[in-house]
């Protein structure tokens, strides 16, 4: 659906995005991860026609976004990492204003406004002034705004930034709904575990370059060369470590307070064998499972961090 080829963006001598390549398929939720200043927002703004690329090509359904900017804007919904709301408008008026830009009129405009307010759980705030909304509500209103023209591609830049845990949970639920509706979404976030849970694939960008991209599993495989298992015990942690080290397909042990994280080269049969062995030797195992992917670890491993830049 969306294809980015050799995208470059330069501000004077500073290279913000460098030869970036990316493909997002229809219905996919793509998580865009990277440290501050890595080029996430720049890339997203170029996709949405808010910045001019220095070079490169972006196509949506095979049509060049850069050359057909205005036409393609009807297919893209953008939510920036700031509020951007008119405080002196009512919630419904705010959405109706954006609907009117897309030439949505009369009853249809009202229906879309109502539907979107229900979707983002702001139905009861229809007549409230935007000014009176909480930060989380404003973020949800912004999300509703980006959906007003029923875009095929949603670009969400840090949609949960600055939110309290409850508001983050609510936002996550809305995004799950959108995922269920089959929307194609590109989302950037610093809250990595949430991204891992939501996204079908992830790309990690650092210093303007795409360092790694693919499904969660593919990324874990690429980074660790094998799957990662996590073991939790109530006591005898050292004995558990010694037992694990006996197996040639277990390596890269990371030992925590009561946990061990390890690279695991075997299949399900080997996992079952190791677990039986631990229990038979009297290790009090609380849990033993394959990790879905600790994106945070991957992120730290593949990016250099601001201090090193």
């Amino acid at each position, binding site marked *: 659906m969306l294809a980015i080829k050799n995208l470059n963006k330069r501000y004077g001598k500073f290279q913000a995005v460098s030869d970036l390549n990316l493909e997002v398929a229809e219905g996919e939720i793509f998580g865009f991860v990277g440290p501050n200043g890595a080029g996430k927002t720049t890339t997203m*703004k170029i996709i*949405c*026609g*808010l*910045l*001019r690329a220095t070079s490169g090509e972006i196509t949506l359904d095979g049509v060049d976004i*850069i050359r057909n*900017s*205005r036409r393609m*804007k*009807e297919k*893209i919904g*953008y939510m*920036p990492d*700031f*509020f*951007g*709301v*008119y405080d*002196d*408008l009512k919630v419904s*008026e705010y959405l109706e*204003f*954006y609907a*009117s*830009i*897309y*030439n949505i009129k009369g009853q249809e405009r009202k229906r879309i406004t109502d539907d979107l307010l229900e979707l983002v759980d702001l139905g009861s705030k229809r007549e409230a002034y935007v000014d009176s909304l909480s930060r989380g509500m404003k973020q949800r209103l912004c999300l509703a*705004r980006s959906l007003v*023209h029923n875009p095929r591609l949603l670009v969400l830049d840090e949609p949960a930034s600055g939110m309290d845990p409850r508001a983050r949970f609510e936002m996550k639920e809305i995004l799950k709904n959108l995922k269920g509706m089959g929307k194609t979404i590109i989302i950037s976030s610093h809250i990595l575990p949430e991204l891992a849970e939501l996204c079908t694939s992830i790309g990690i960008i650092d210093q303007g370059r795409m360092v790694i991209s693919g499904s969660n599993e593919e990324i874990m495989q690429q980074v660790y060369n094998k799957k990662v298992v996590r073991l939790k015990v109530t006591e005898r942690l050292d004995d558990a470590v010694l037992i694990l080290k006996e197996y040639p397909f277990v390596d890269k042990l990371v030992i925590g307070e009561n946990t061990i994280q390890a690279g695991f080269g075997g299949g399900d049969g080997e996992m079952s064998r190791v677990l039986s062995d631990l229990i038979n030797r009297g290790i009090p195992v609380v849990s033993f499972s394959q990790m879905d992917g600790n994106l945070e670890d991957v992120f730290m491993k593949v990016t250099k961090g601001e201090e090193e830049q």
Partner: protein
Amino acid sequence: MNINPVLLKELKVRMRGWKAAGIIALYLLVLTAVAVFIIYTTFMDPYSSNIDPQISIGAYTALAVFQFMLIMFIVPALTAGAISGEREKQTLDLVLCTRLKPISIIIGKLFASTSQTLLLIIASFPLFSMVFLFGGISIKEIMQLFGFYIVTAVTIGCIGMFFSAHLKRTTASTVFTYGTLAFLAFGTIFIGVFYIRIFYNWDYNKFLPILYSNPLVGFGSLLAEQFGYYGGINAILGFSAGFGRNSNAANAISPWLGNIIFDLVLCAVLLILSAARINPVGKGTFGFFRFRREKKKKASDSI
């Protein structure tokens, strides 16, 4: 009919509640007070006849000048923050990422910002008709005056929009807008006088072209022409055709008409430049020239 969504939204916000109606009422009250004062003092003049066209001319001039000053002072303040204010509120990107063309955004903001002033001008129309009671002023002349007002208000609005689109801060934009207005109103006169003083052989029957850009000269010449008076400020400026059209400069275009033509051209240029500036994927205000330069550079590189 499709009304510009930006204009519609702004009008909805501005006209909400009693504030807008209150401002109009207060403004008309002040204008009425000015007119009544002029008429009353003329009536009280023992040397003046009670039905004297001079009464209407006095009231008309007072109202016209008062309203013109209002446009000169208020419109820059209302328009200079139109785009920079959107930037400060972080709402500009949200409008730019929609299908709306940059020129539509600029025009919507321009008319939204000047709408209040235009409304005040139009609301004062019945008040101006009061001068018909005493004669001396025709409806055509009032229409001319209102036309001149509207063009001047929109032009000042365009200047405000231009700086608002180009400067990040509203304060800077406001300062530059007032500065440009001061230059057009006084700077052009200063340049004109300076020019004449240098070129001693200047034909005093000619109208200095730079003064076509001057809104004060345009406004003054309109009133002077309406009163059939072509002298006045000529003496101050030092050239005979300076303010109104006289027999010696019969071929020259009326200064106020010249000013309107200048304003309309300026508006078109400023609107195009402002739209180019806010277009995120455009080449910027002077993109055309940059494009030519790049093309030349590429051509020279290939040689």
